[in-house]
Every structure is written in C-alpha cells, then in structure tokens.
C-alpha cells in the first residue's frame, strides 16, 4: 500500500536528482567557456532516467544520440563511475584554443533544464497534495 503511494514520488525524485546533476554539468561548461582545451560534458537525460529506474531500454530507443550503427552512444548517468557516465560535447565550430563549449547551446540547454527541473518540482508538489487530500478524505 505504502510503496504504491511512494512509487510515483520515486520516479519524480529520480528525475529531480538527474535534472540537478545535469544542471551542475551545464554550469561547469558555462564556467569553463574560456578555458583552453576544455571539452564540454553532457549526458542523455532519457537514457539516464531509464538507467535510474533499472529499465533496460529497447535497442532502437536507447541510442538517441547516434545516427549510425557504428557510432558509440553517449553513456547514461546512473551507471558506472561518476566520471565515465558523462559524455563529451562535439565542437559546433572549431576554435583556436580547442575549447568545445558552444555558449548558445549551453545557455539553451541550461534554461531548458531549469524549466524542466521546475516542472518536476511542481509534479512532486501536485502528487503530495493529491495524496494528502486522499489521506484526509476531505
């Protein structure tokens, strides 16, 4: 009974943790926008979410980041060591100091991630309110 109540919260809790981690990774990229030789990091949220739920994703859906069978997919967060689960961003345009941070891309990703983080927060709040009213029976 109780685990059914918390199951839905678990999903959003995992999502919130992953969103926070992605936010931190993107903030690192933005902080290092002027560091020579820095390579942008990121991870695929959908893959990380599946790994956090313990689901093995179907092969066709798992490799969103690849367009060819020989590409190596971005590793998902949640499995492996903390560093190996992060992927590397590709250069959108070459720079002299080999920095691969694209400020426009990072800013867009940051805002997108912030909005989704807040959405997840509201889902959690809504869930809690729903359960509270169910418990009180009013």
């Amino acid at each position, binding site marked *: 009974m109780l685990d059914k109540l918390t199951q839905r919260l678990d999903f959003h809790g995992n999502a*919130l943790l992953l969103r926070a981690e992605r936010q931190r990774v993107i*903030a*690192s990229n933005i902080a290092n926008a002027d*560091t020579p030789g*820095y390579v942008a990091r990121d991870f695929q949220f959908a893959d990380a979410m599946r790994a956090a739920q313990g689901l093995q994703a179907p092969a066709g859906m798992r490799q969103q980041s690849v367009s060819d069978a020989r590409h190596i997919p971005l590793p998902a967060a949640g499995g492996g060591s903390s560093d190996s689960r992060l992927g590397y961003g590709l250069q959108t345009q070459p720079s002299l100091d080999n920095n691969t941070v694209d400020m426009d891309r990072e800013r867009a990703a940051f805002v997108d991630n*912030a909005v989704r983080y807040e959405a997840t927060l509201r889902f*959690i709040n809504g869930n*809690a309110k729903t359960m509270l009213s169910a418990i009180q029976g009013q």
Partner: protein
Amino acid sequence: MASNLANVDAVAGPDGQAYKARQVVFQTTPMGADGAAGVRVSTIQESDAPGRRVHDPANPMADAEGYVTHANVNAVEEMVNMISASRSYQNNVEVMNTAKSLLLKTLQMGQ
C-alpha cells in the same frame, strides 16, 4: 584587462620600462565528486610583443633617437577581450541566480 586598458598610453612603469600587456590563462579545476568542474587562473602571461614606438623628441622619456616606447597594449584587442570577459561574467551570474531560485523552490517542496 582593465589594467591593460588603463596602461594603454603608459610610457614607463616603476622599473623605467614600458608596460607589457598581460593576459590570464584559465584552467579547469575539479569541484566536488560528480564531474563538476570549476575554473581558476593558472598563469598570467606577459606579452612579448614589441611596444609601440612614437617619434617625440620633446618627451623626457625619449631615447637617443627621439623615439618613445609606449606599452604594447592593443586597445582594440583589449576591448574585444573585455566584452568577452564581461559576457562570460554575466553568464555565470545568471547561472548562479537560476541555481539559487531553483534551490529556493526546492526548499519549499511539499508546502
């Protein structure tokens, strides 16, 4: 960069030599465990470019041939660097503001 621009017309510093342009070199530094990366200044490089030489025999700092060596600061380059640096600063401030507001909202979770 501000000191570079301030010294763009400096003729001589305390050691009697013309001011040399300085540039910072950034370096990634790990923060915490989860692949978060900060940034720090690894070195401050002095430019070795030759200073701007202006013929001005009346200047007390002029050498035997009547030339005054100014600082090797390129004002245009410095302005571009300055704009880039202040944009980066703004970006990081924005990141911190967003992180702060998200954290505050997280603290109010369930209320």
